[in-house]
C-alpha cells in the first residue's frame, strides 16, 4: 500500500517567529531593516516550502481558536508553494455548508485540486456559546452529518434539494465549470462510536490519535472498516502522530526528557521511529500526519531522514505481500 505523509503546520506553535510584535528584539547596535510586509505568513510559507521540498505529500493545518485561521493560511500557502496538498481543519459551526462547498470549488480550481477538509471536533458548550453557536450538544453529530451531506450534494448533484434540521437547500447544485473539480478529501477523527459511525458514512480518511497499543488501534480500524462496508463505502485510515527523532536513540530520549513531549509521541532514532510507523502501516494506516516542534527545523529533519526510511520499509512490505 502506498503511504501518504503530511506535516502539521500549527499556527499557534512558535508564536514568536516572524510575528512582528513578538519576535526577539534586536539591540540598538544592529541596524534593523526589516519591513512591515514581513509577517507571520512568511513563516507558514517557509514551513510549507520545507515540507514540500523534503517530500511530504501534504500539510495539515489544525484549527486553532487563538491563532491564525487554518483556511486563510491554507490558501496563502497553496498559492505560494506548488504541488503539496493542504488540509485545513475547521468545525462545521463556521456557517453555511453550501458556501463552504463553493469556497472549496474555487480553492480546487485555483490550486490543481490540492484541498482536503479536516472537520474539527466541536468545542465545549461555553466556547460554542461564545462563538454564537447555539446548537445543542445532542445535535452536533447530526449537524456534521448534514453539513457534509449538503456540501457533497451541491458539489455533485444539480438540482440538489435537502431539508434538514440545520441546513436547507432548494434546487441547488453547482453548474459547469465549478463542478468540474473533485470534492475535497474529507478527513474525520475521533474514537467514539458516534465518530466511527459518522466516518463510515462520510470520511475519505479517518484520523486516529496514538493508541495505547497496536491491538487497540487494530480494533478501531476493524470496527470502522465493518461499519463502512455495511454502507458500501471504504474509508482509509490515518494517524495524528507527534514524533521526536534524532540520529541516535539516546539523543532522542535525552531530548524528550529535556523538553517533555505530549503523550503518544514516538521518540527514537530515525530507524526506530520508522520501524514503529511501519508497524502502524502494517495495521492499515496509510495516512501519517506527523508533527514536531519547532516545526520548520523538524520538517527538514523528518522529511530528509525519517520519510525515506519509512517509504523503504513500506515498499519492502508491499513487495513481500
Amino acid at each position, binding site marked *: 500500500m502506498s503511504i501518504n505523509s503530511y506535516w502539521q503546520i500549527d499556527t499557534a506553535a512558535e508564536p514568536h517567529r516572524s510575528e512582528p510584535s513578538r519576535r526577539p528584539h534586536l539591540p540598538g547596535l544592529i541596524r534593523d531593516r526589516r519591513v512591515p510586509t514581513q509577517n507571520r505568513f512568511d513563516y507558514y510559507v517557509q514551513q510549507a516550502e520545507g515540507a514540500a521540498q523534503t517530500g511530504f505529500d501534504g500539510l495539515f493545518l489544525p484549527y486553532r481558536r487563538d491563532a491564525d485561521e487554518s483556511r486563510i493560511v491554507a*490558501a496563502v500557502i497553496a498559492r505560494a508553494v506548488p504541488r503539496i496538498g493542504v488540509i485545513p481543519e475547521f468545525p462545521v459551526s463556521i456557517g453555511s455548508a453550501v458556501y463552504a462547498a463553493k469556497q472549496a470549488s474555487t480553492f480546487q480550481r485555483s490550486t490543481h485540486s490540492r484541498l482536503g477538509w479536516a472537520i474539527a471536533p466541536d468545542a465545549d458548550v461555553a466556547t460554542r456559546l461564545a462563538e454564537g453557536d447555539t446548537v445543542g450538544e445532542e445535535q452536533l453529530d447530526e449537524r456534521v452529518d448534514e453539513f457534509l451531506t449538503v456540501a457533497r450534494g451541491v458539489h455533485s448533484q444539480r438540482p440538489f434539494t435537502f431539508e434538514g434540521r440545520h441546513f436547507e437547500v432548494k434546487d441547488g447544485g453547482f453548474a459547469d465549470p465549478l463542478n468540474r473539480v473533485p470534492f475535497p478529501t474529507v478527513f474525520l477523527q475521533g474514537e467514539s462510536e458516534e465518530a466511527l459511525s459518522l466516518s463510515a458514512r462520510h470520511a475519505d480518511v479517518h484520523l486516529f490519535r496514538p493508541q495505547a497499543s497496536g491491538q487497540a488501534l487494530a480494533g478501531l480500524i476493524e470496527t470502522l472498516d465493518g461499519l463502512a462496508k455495511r454502507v458500501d463505502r471504504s474509508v482509509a485510515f490515518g494517524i495524528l502522530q507527534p514524533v521526536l527523532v534524532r540520529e541516535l536513540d539516546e539523543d532522542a530520549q535525552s531530548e524528550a526528557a529535556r523538553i517533555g513531549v505530549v503523550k503518544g509521541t514516538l521518540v527514537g532514532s530515525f530507524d526506530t521511529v520508522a520501524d514503529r510507523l511501519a508497524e502502524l502501516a502494517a495495521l492499515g494506516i496509510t495516512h501519517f500526519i506527523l508533527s514536531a516542534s519547532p516545526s520548520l527545523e523538524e520538517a527538514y529533519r523528518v522529511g530528509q531522514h525519517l520519510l525515506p526510511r519509512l517509504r523503504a520499509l513500506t515498499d519492502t512490505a508491499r513487495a513481500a505481500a
Partner: protein
Amino acid sequence: MSIDFYWRLPTHGCHSSIHRGSYDRGDWSPISQHNIAPGLDRDDQDDGFAYIDHLAAIAKAAESVGFQGGLIPSFPNTDDPWVISPLLARETSSFRFMIAFQPGFGNPVQTARATASLQRATGGRTLFNIITGGGGPAQLWWGDSFTHDDRYGRTSEWLDVFRGVWGSEDFSYKGRFYQVDHGGLPPLFRAEEFPEMWFSGSSEAALQVAADHADYYLSWLEPFDQLTDKFARVKARTAALGGEQKCAIRVDLVARPTEEEAWRDIKLGFENVTDATRKQWRGQATDSVGASRQAALRPTEARYYDELIVAPNLWGGFNLLRGGPALGIVGSYEQCAAKLDELIERGADGFILAGTPHLEEAYRVGEEVLPLLGRSASTLLQQAAE
C-alpha cells in the same frame, strides 16, 4: 476631499473584447485554442494555468495604476472572493480585497476571526461589500430561506455581532437571529483594523441598515437625478442618527480616445448579443428593489443600440454585453472623466469601475481617465461660461 476608486475582479470569467459574448478568459465557455487561464497548449492539452492566474494579473494591473483595490463579486456560478483574497494576498502589495458577502454565508463570530486573520495575511487590505441577497430562487440555491425583511433584520444583527466581537474580549448579545455569550476575538487579533463595510440595497429596510452600519452606501449607476435623490435620502437618514454616510457607485464604462470609437464598440457589441442572452436577462425573477429599478430600462427589448442611450454618454444595455448593471458610461476619455466628476458633485464619495476586458481596461481607465478627474468639470464649466 478625496475619492476612493476601486476596480472589479470579474469572478465569472472575462471576455477578450466587448464585441464578443464568449468568456475566452477563464473556463465559463467551452475551451478552444484562443482561451486563456486555462488555455490549451500546442498539443491541445490543458496548459496548466488556472483562472486565478488571470485574476492575479488584473489585481496587479489595478493596483499599479492607482485603484485602491477591487470588488470581488459572489454569485452562484462565480469563483469565491473569500478564497481569491488570501490566494492573491502575497503577490499584490496595495490592492484591497472587497469581498462580496451575504450574512447567511457564515457565522458572524467565525467570520470575524477569519477576517482578522485575513487582515494579518494582507496587511489590513480586507473590506466587505455586504449584500443581503436578492431573494427568490437564488437565495434558496444558497440554502437561505429567509424572507426579504427578515434578511435585513439578520444582516443588521450579523453586523452588530461582527463588530461586537471585534472590539471586545467579553461581548454578549441576545438577538432574534444570533446569540453570543462572553465572546470576543483572541488577543492576537485585537490590533487589526476593522474592515470597511460597503453596503448595497435599495429598499427602505436596506437604507435603514446602511444608515446604522455602512461606511459606504453602494449603488449601481442609475439615472443621475434618481441617484442624486437616493444618495441625499441615505445621507439624511444617517445624519439624523448623528453619523455621516459616504456613497459610492458601481459602474462599467467604455472609454476610448474619441466618443465615436466608444459608440462604435458599443454598437458592435450590441449587434453580437444573442437571443439567448436577451432571454436570460428578460424579466429575471427577484424581489430585490435595486434590480427592478434597473429592469425598468428594459434593454432586452431594444432593437438598435441607440434606443438605449438614456442621456449623453449614458447607455442602458451593459447587462446585455456582460451581465450585471444595465446603465454605464460611454465616451471619450474626457467625457468619461466629466461624467465621473458630475457624479462626485452629486454626492459620490467612491467608485467601483469596470471595463471589458478587465485587465487592459484597468490600465486604460487608470492611465487615461483617472488623471483627468477634477480637472474636466472646471474646464467644462469654464468653456460653458465663455
